Structures are given as structure tokens and as C-alpha cells.
């Protein structure tokens, strides 16, 4: 395409300017409020600290705000379980059916709702607020240099932000990256951003780890811990992106242009309605649809005995050696595997597997959970590696299906599952060995 294109584009822009000059009257200052805000949020001094601070602040609000409603919901839902049991007894429902329906299906459901709903109901509106405000392109602007170094596209940051809500959505959002090479990098690494389904696990494990073994757990230290996990996820994203752009996905960075739109104060009412309806309830609904049958299935696995032990016991035993190498145990590995349909399920599955081994506990508080875990041989290393494994392991089933759809390739989908899993195994293995070598646990 030659100079004709130049002349055509120039002529159109020229006419646009002539028309605009005749109809637009400006009485405002040259530099508006946006200019001042950008001076702060993208400055050398405040740019990065502000981003990290905001991240930490959002997690803190989420964790401390979700604490009480979670407790309340849990009491309510588990209280209702007793009613259900009473009804079952009154109706002479056989024990196995009561087990599948109430102890399996209902319990799984109650856990997912009480653990997931409150943090989501706080996190999503906060995040949507930043999104609608126009802050996210500034984050991309601030971080682009790092992504350029990694051979990736600056807009990958935007797709990662979507990943916070749901990695499947993040993968779909990768369409905004034009270059196929950079889009693939973004698709393959989106999983390193912890999605909403993994937040409850990260939060719970942070509380467990800090509380039991560092001596103090409060919402501030837990928020720092989760923010740390997210920063680690970003670093791994950069590293893996760099690795991919040096090996499988070699190439030159494509054109990068990013508009920094005007800030717009979001309409809070619309924002709340939309983030609750479109995001919170949608994600919760998906989790519940998966959690309820999975809860029933896991109960069956945990309660059907072959010989001495339950099916879960057998499977967990098989995986024990491998789990131990990674600083985890067989049941945790099994929980991650069985949790493939949805990450939300990992903790409920784990608890059910531990409970099936005979320890019966009222799991209505974090303290009770902690005792259960300690009774099953947990140390702070287990909790830490649980965080790392959850952050780095294979994407959930929905995300993998989305990757298949977006890339139209089984090969890349397979890589999208194996690559993070490999990273997770290597990282957990190294951490476990180092910690044990120095006798820290």
C-alpha cells in the first residue's frame, strides 16, 4: 500500500478537523483533571506502589469484609443441614441416600455458597469499579515495559485482569490481541492469574498458614499473603511468556498502541446490579451446578469401602508418595485432580476425604478446619505449597474447553494444561526440598 493510503487517510482526518473546528467550542482548560490523575497513577514514584497498594487494599477489603457474612451464611446453611437430617429420619430415608443427598450434595453446596459468595460479592464490585473508572489501561501502560521484555503484548495485562474474575473469560478476552503469537502467549499464561474460584482457597490457606504457624492471622497479613501470591503469579506469567517467546513462539513484538481513555466515574447503582447479576451470580451459579453433583460423587467415593479403606482412601494412598515429594499429600493431589471441573471444589473435596477417614468434626470455623488439617499431618509447608500449587497448576475444565475453542488446537490446549502443571510441580518440589533440607518444618 503506497502513498495513496496516506493521502486518503489524511484527507479524511483533514475533513474531520475542519468540521470539528466549526461545531466544537471549548472553554475548558488545556489540562483537565484526568491529566493530573495520570500524573500520579503513572508516575515513577507512585505508579508501581499505587498498583500494589490498590491490589492489597482490595484483598484486605474482601477478606475482612467477607469474614462475618461467611460465618453467618455458614451457620445458617449448616444449621439447615440438621433440619434436613431430621426430616430424613422422620421420613425413614435410608442412610446411604441421606449420605449422598445431605452429607454429599447439600454439604458441598453449602460450603461453596458460604465460602464463595461473600468474597465475590465484595471483590467483583470493587474490581468492576476500577474497570469502569478506566484504571486498567493505566495498569497496562505501567507494566508494558515488562511485557515487552518478555516478548509479550502490553494488552496481555488487560486479559489478565479479566482472569481475576474467571480464567475462561480471560482467555476469551485474549482476542483483543491482534498478533496470533502474542495472543497464544496470553492464552497459555492466563491461568497464572488466580481466578475467583481459587481466591477462597488462597484466603483460607493464608489464614491457616499464618495463624497456626506464624502465630498471627488477621485480615491484613492474609491480604498481604494473597497479594504476594498474585504478584508471584504475575512474575511467573512474565517468566513463562519470556520462555515461550524464546522457544515455541519466537517472533518480533507486534505493533502496540493503547488508548488511555478519559476517567469516568462509574454509576454505582448500575455497577452494583451488573457486577452482582452478571458476574457474582453467574460464577456462583456455575460453581453450584458443578459443586452439587460433585459433592454427591465425592461422598460416594469417600464412603464406598473396598476392603479396609474407602475409594478415596485407596486413591489418596496411591498418590501419597508423589504428594509428599511436593510438600503436599496424596489427598491434596487427588482433590486437585477431582477439582478439575471447577477450582472451587478443591477444598470441599479435601475436607470430605479427610473426614471419610473417620475424624468427624463440625466444620463451622477456621479453627476447626485448622485442627482437622493438623490432625492430618499438615505443617505450614503444606499450606504454602497448597497456595503455590493452586496458583500455578492446570486450568479448570471450563477454561481448557475455552482454550480449545479459541485456539482450535488440541496441541495448544494440551500445552495449556501441561505447562502450568509442570511449573507447579517444579516450584512445589523445590520449595519442599529446600524447606526440608534446612529443617524448617
Amino acid at each position: 500500500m503506497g502513498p495513496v493510503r496516506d493521502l486518503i487517510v489524511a484527507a479524511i482526518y483533514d475533513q474531520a478537523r475542519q468540521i470539528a473546528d466549526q461545531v466544537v467550542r471549548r472553554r475548558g482548560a488545556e489540562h483537565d483533571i484526568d491529566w493530573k490523575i495520570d500524573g500520579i497513577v503513572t508516575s515513577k514514584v507512585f505508579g508501581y506502589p499505587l498498583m500494589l497498594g490498590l491490589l492489597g487494599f482490595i484483598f484486605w477489603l474482601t477478606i475482612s469484609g467477607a469474614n462475618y457474612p461467611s460465618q453467618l451464611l455458614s451457620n445458617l446453611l449448616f444449621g439447615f443441614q440438621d433440619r434436613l437430617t431430621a426430616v430424613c429420619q422422620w421420613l425413614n430415608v435410608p442412610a446411604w441416600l441421606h449420605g449422598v443427598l445431605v452429607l454429599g450434595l447439600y454439604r458441598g453446596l453449602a460450603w461453596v455458597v458460604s465460602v464463595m459468595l461473600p468474597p465475590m460479592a465484595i471483590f467483583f464490585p470493587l474490581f468492576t469499579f476500577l474497570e469502569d473508572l478506566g484504571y486498567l489501561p493505566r495498569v497496562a501502560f505501567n507494566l508494558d515495559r515488562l511485557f515487552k521484555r518478555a516478548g509479550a503484548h502490553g494488552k496481555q495485562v488487560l486479559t489478565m485482569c479479566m482472569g481475576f474474575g474467571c480464567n475462561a473469560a480471560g482467555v476469551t478476552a485474549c482476542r483483543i490481541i491482534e498478533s496470533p503469537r502474542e495472543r497464544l502467549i496470553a492464552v497459555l499464561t492466563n491461568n497464572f492469574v488466580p481466578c475467583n474460584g481459587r481466591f477462597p482457597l488462597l484466603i483460607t490457606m493464608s489464614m491457616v498458614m499464618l495463624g497456626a504457624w506464624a502465630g498471627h492471622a488477621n485480615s491484613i497479613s492474609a491480604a498481604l499473603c494473597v497479594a504476594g501470591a498474585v504478584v508471584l503469579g504475575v512474575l511467573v506469567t512474565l517468566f513463562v511468556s519470556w520462555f515461550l517467546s524464546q522457544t515455541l513462539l519466537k517472533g518480533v513484538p507486534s505493533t502496540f498502541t493503547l488508548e488511555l481513555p478519559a476517567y469516568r466515574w462509574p454509576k454505582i447503582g448500575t455497577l452494583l446490579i451488573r457486577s452482582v447479576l452478571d458476574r457474582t451470580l453467574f460464577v456462583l451459579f456455575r460453581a453450584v451446578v458443578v459443586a452439587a453433583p460433585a459433592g454427591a460423587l465425592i461422598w460416594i467415593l469417600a464412603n464406598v469401602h473396598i476392603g479396609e479403606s474407602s475409594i478415596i482412601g485407596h486413591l489418596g494412598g496411591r498418590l501419597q508418595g508423589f504428594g509428599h515429594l511436593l510438600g503436599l499429600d496424596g489427598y491434596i493431589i487427588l482433590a486437585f485432580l477431582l477439582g478439575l471441573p471447577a477450582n472451587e471444589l478443591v477444598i470441599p473435596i479435601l475436607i470430605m476425604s479427610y473426614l471419610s477417614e473417620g475424624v468427624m468434626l463440625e466444620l463451622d470455623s477456621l479453627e476447626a478446619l485448622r485442627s482437622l488439617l493438623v490432625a492430618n499431618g499438615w505443617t505450614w509447608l503444606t499450606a504454602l505449597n497448597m497456595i503455590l500449587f493452586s496458583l500455578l497448576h492446570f486450568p479448570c475444565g471450563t477454561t481448557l474447553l475455552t482454550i480449545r475453542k479459541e485456539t482450535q488446537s488440541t496441541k495448544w490446549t494440551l500445552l495449556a494444561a501441561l505447562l502450568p502443571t509442570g511449573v507447579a510441580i517444579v516450584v512445589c518440589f523445590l520449595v519442599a526440598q529446600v524447606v526440608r533440607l534446612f529443617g524448617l518444618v
Partner: protein
Amino acid sequence: MKGLAVDARGVFAKLNPAHSDGVIALAGNPNTGKSTVFNGLTGLNQHTGNWPGKTVVLAKGNYRYKSKLITLVDLPGTYSLLANSADEQVARDFICFGKPDATVVVVDATCLERNLNLALQVMEMTPKVILCVNLIDEAKRKKIEIDCPKLAELLGVPVVPTAAREKVGLDKLKEAIHQMVFAHQQTRPRPVRYNQEIEAAVAKIQPELEPYLRGKIDARWVALRLLDGDTTIITEIKKYLRVENVEKAPREQGELKVVKCYK
């Protein structure tokens, strides 16, 4: 969220009533509040974040106005229609081959000059254009005034100021669409004039193209694309015209093709 929106669109694509009374395309730069206009008109809940390149699939929605069922197609937000990217090509192809009954170009009142670029490009392709000057509330806050009647006169197409977030002006927009589609209101878009050489070349090529295009596609526009060396448009036009010979369903075919881009 996104997954839901995509599903909803899939359902819409299937349910999209062939008996819709009119199909309207919604074009605009990124960050013009185009999706807010879309939501405001259709009530379909679609996420509208404040970042560029967000609408990556075609969203469709319906609304009823004066007992007419209108289908609205939300095109990807682009700076241009010169088809440098998949998004731009989709938007261009829909306007060109999807034959919408009208195209609403949403522009940002605080940044009119930049946005008019796209509007002028659309006006080269079809005369059935309505300019929606959105974010007038933002402009007011920034002390920017826009003389909409004058703008309508200079462009030769209807201009409707809106503040979609506050639901201001949307009824007027619906009325303008209604007028264009059902009252067959004529517009007189003022074409962009290029330099002598280009105009001379266009004058030469345009009459030669007309017999082939048979008034289905604007010949001046195609001539310009040929001059700037856009090869994609030639293949698309070939496909389109052949398809049209076989079946007399230009709109469906155009849509089908656009949808196919995403499969």
C-alpha cells in the same frame, strides 16, 4: 460475565428473528460508550468495561419502538474501517455486505475530531447513517459545547446528542432510527473530497465498476479501496456478489459470513 455474554449471543444468533422489521448496525471508536448505548436501547445486559477493544464478538439485541421490532448489532469498536485488523474487517464487512437498514455511528462528544474520522468512513459506504453524539454530559463538564444542528448540516446526516449512561436522548435516537428505516428519510452525506489525482482516478474507475456492483455496493467507495491497494475487499466483493446471484438473501448471507469469522 463474558462467558454468559457469549452464551447469550449464541442464543440470540439462533433466535434472531428473520421477521425483524429492521437491522441497525452500531459502529464507533472504542471508549465512546457504544456498548452503553447498545444496552440502553436493548436492555440486554452486556458488560461495558472502560478499556479499548472490549467488544470482541458481535452482540445482538432487540427492541420494539412504535410496534416495530428492531435488531441492533453491536460492531467491534474500531478507529477505522480500512480493515487493518480482524475487528475492523468484521465491522466493515457487516456495514458493506450485511446491508443494515441504518448504521448508527456513536461518537465521543469530548473528542469529536478523532471520532468523525470513522463517521466519515462509514458515510462513504452508505448514506443511511445516523450520528449519535454520546457523552454530552461529560463534554458539558469539560466545558465543551457542540453545535449539533450545524454538525448535521455539515455532514448531511441526522445527528442525535445523547448521554446514554443517564438515558438522555435515547428516545430521540430511536425516533431518528424509526424515521430513517420506516419513513425513508433521505440523507445527503457530504463526501470527503480527495486531491485531484485521486479524484481523477476515481472518476475513471467508478463508471467501470458500476455494472458489476449493480448498485449493491457504493462504487466510489470500492474505487477508493482499489486505489489504496486493499486486496481483502476485492475477494470479499467477489464472494458476496456470487452468493447474491444464487440466493436472494443478501442480509442473511452477509450476517452468516460475519458470524463465520468468529467460528
